[in-house]
């Protein structure tokens, strides 16, 4: 599971509409709003990392959104990292390496 803290910036008059649209996106929770600055803070939860990236792209594409970016990223339980950890943290076994594929020469 990945959690990301995202700042969304919109034109202040459109804040309510953008906030509503955000809260309707899957995995997205609106936590804070600042009407004067036109800023909305959301947390996005995504199972796979690809879903997380697509989610950000969806947020950026909402009408009224000027800028949206992740500022905070939590990935302690990310399954892909856990797999990477178990595979690579130990010493590679002495013997022929299976990680070097052949050279791409013409």
């Amino acid at each position, binding site marked *: *599971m990945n*959690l*990301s*803290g*995202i*700042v969304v910036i919109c034109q202040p008059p459109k804040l309510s509409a953008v906030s509503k649209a955000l809260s309707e996106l899957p995995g997205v*929770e609106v*936590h*804070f709003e*600042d009407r004067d*600055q036109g*800023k909305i*803070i*959301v*947390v996005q*939860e995504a199972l796979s*990392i*690809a879903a*997380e*990236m697509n989610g950000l792209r969806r947020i950026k594409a909402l009408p009224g959104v*000027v*800028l949206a*970016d*992740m*500022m*905070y*990223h*939590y*990935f*302690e*339980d*990310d399954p*892909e*990292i856990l*797999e*990477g*950890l178990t*595979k*690579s*943290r*130990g*010493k*590679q*076994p*002495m*013997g*022929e*390496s299976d*990680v*070097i*594929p*052949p*050279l*791409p*020469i*013409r």
Partner: protein
Amino acid sequence: MTVSRRNFLKAGIAASTASMAGLTLTPAALSAAQETEKEWQWDKGVCRFCGTGCGLMLATRNGRVVAQKGDVENSVNRGWQCVKGYFNAKIMYGQDRLTQPLMRMKDGKFHKEGNFIAVSWEQAFDEMERQFRRAYAEKGPEGVACFGSGQWTVQEGYAMNKLFKAGFRANMVDPNARNCMASAVAGFYSTFGTDEPAGNYMDIEHTDTMVLWGANMAEMHTVLWARVMNRRLANPNVRVVNLSTFRNMSSDGADLEIIFKPNSDLAILNYLAREVIARDAVNWDFVNKHTIFATGPYDIGYGLRADPEGKWTFPEEADVVAKELKVALDKHEAIGQRRQEGEVVEQNSRGNPGAHWSISFEDYKKALEPYTLEFVAEVAKGDDSESIEEFKRKLRELADLFVDQQRKVVSFWTMGINQHTRGTWANEQIYAVHLLLGKQSQPGNGAFSLTGQPSACGTAREVGTFAHRLPADRVIPNPAHRQYTEEQWKVPAKTISPKVGSFYAKIMRDLQDGSVKWAWVQVNNPWHTHPNANHWIAAARKSDNFIVVSEAYPGISAKVADLILPVAMIFEKYGAYGNAERRTQHWREMVPPPGNAKGDLWQVLEFSKRFTVGDFWGEQTVPGLKAAGYEDNKLPSVLADAEAMGYKPTDSLYKVLFATPDNMQYKWPDPVAKGGGNHTSEALGDGWFVEKALWQEYVPFGRGIGKDLADYDVYLRDDVRGLRWPVVDGKEGTWRFNEEYDPYVTKGAGFEFYGKLLKAIPSGDLDKVTNPEPVGLPGKAKIFFRPYSAPVEQPDENYNLWFSTGRVLEHWHSGTMTRRVPELHRSVPAAVLWIHPDDARERGLQRNDLVWLESRRGKVQIRVETGGRNTMPKGTVYAPFFDEGVFINKVCIDSACPISKESDYKKCAVKVYKA
């Protein structure tokens, strides 16, 4: 994970993000943020990717990084990060991370054609040493070389530089930064006499006009671009101009977009300079006090390997390579250079392309005369679908913005200008326009050369890990600079060779012709990223070469290697980077490296233990060495002097160069570590704090000459987020060369370009030197005239399209790291070829079709893209180079700026047809 734990985390992350974004929070929300983060250990870090140098905060738990946020305390990014930055931590956890040395073996022994077998460090270093001694014995000091990096930490670059230049007595170190900003350096040297920008990122908030010269900041310097866009949104008067050879993402945020033909930036810049004069907008007070006019030869070649016998050239590329020695001027060059069309010009100044001399203002003006609006529009208009009138209107508008007395102007550039067969010239021309207007070295006014790599400035340039450089603006050919360096390093006089070593491309060529037989690669991927790659891969695999590659992931260079050494990555080691605004940022080791991986610095030091000064400090034969005070082709023995200094021939390089009595005073552990580990010091096991000691050894080089760095502990303080040099009296630098801001400027001078390099030059007219007597010009900058020059290879009937390459937002360089992050990989999995829909149609191609992209040098298969983030003008195609499955550098030409030796990745001729 339980629901309540998840909600707890979310509330904390939301509150923390909100406070980073400047929202006012209730005490309850604030305490939620603190509660969540309590279990983690936070420390400051710096982004491992681009030259912007964003600050990060990393959270660790149980020996690994678990969370990351932008650093709000860091003035570079104020908490923001781009999509690459966001994955700094994750790149350490890819599944194919290398954690054990791997060597090509057959029957239990090293064998060039063997398969990669995991070996111990001991075995790895044994073979590496054996091969090193063989190459050195056969070829001498210049038979060994190092491909270094602008991604080296400062200390890593410093150590390797010292090992080669003082230990091995070979200036055979050159960084990949050569292919990234060497033209910028050459431009700084020739114009100002000292390297690195005068301005800083606050220029963005001070200016009202920003001009992008072939720099797609929206994708390449994303966080700076966010600052540019903020500035533009906040102030209706701000104008942004994007000059490019195709429409890219930066165009979306620009008020004016100018699509020009490859190399015609040279003409556009001359048009601007001409216009400044024609409109009587020259700031004469500034120009008279602080500048002189200069020019140099035009017949300087194209940086290709001159090869009249065709020994090193594919038959298909011979026609282009032949131009290296002789070229017929085309119509536009002839006009721009005041010559006749078709005139054949022998490239006689190839030997000294950077020579230059002062000229009068009258000559300067005369040289610019041909660059009228009519002429430049004809040379430069890059989009067929645009009318010439519209294009002229845009050029005029650009000139209006520059000359407007009310406007401040900042020019930004990186690869479009630097990776250019006339890259040094183009840098100089941008300065020329700013200097003529007096719009330089002031808040919001200045030509600002950005960098691509995180420590291109901090390591490659400041430490001087180039074949011709020494720390802090010192250069190999200058005897006083060598002497100073030898004294600092406490090595005998004449230890350092007076001969400039091989630049990056030359090391490739040296491997090809067998003059170099041993090479060590650190923190870069030369066989993926150097253009015309088919030649270099074949050269590296020649039977008697030995290639060592220190790597984290198996990229193309690792596959080319004979020995792969697994490295510690970014937060697995102590380090420091210097960014594009001269900000030096240090970080601590936060997590241990995996398995048997070890940092590049440990590798250098450990390898140095295997050699003694007696191995290198006797007399050496160096073919081609010619310098005052030296016998030709010889480096003298310095062993007698060494003994007088108290060294024995049996002393190890480790002891003499690194673990010196001075350095051993910096003990490990040290309180700045706050109890954390340091695998470098711990693995060496002799109780010194390597990174701190080397930093303290390095800083005196820049002190008192305008490049002052602070002491080590200052950078590690919690309240410091890097410091811009020069750091004088505890205050960081802001705008260089300006009396109001720069303590190095003489009181009362106003401005002073106090750089010392290339400051005594002869004088002459536009064509030649007329008085060879050098005249000094202390405190002055040079305004250069440089003419339009056509690209050495241009589309013809066979190869009928322009081709350009570069990065994409989501991937870093050759993708060895970013392609490990699944989400980055999935968002842009394979490189695509952007092409104009008409060009696709004419070739019977549709979006997603697989095609061959072919040049004289090689071909690759790639899929076609007619939409998306880039819009190509007719006749030009673009593909990024990150993807080793689409090995773009087989196609690219290895022409380069002859002055800076930086390759031109931005233009060659190709054909595209269905696969």
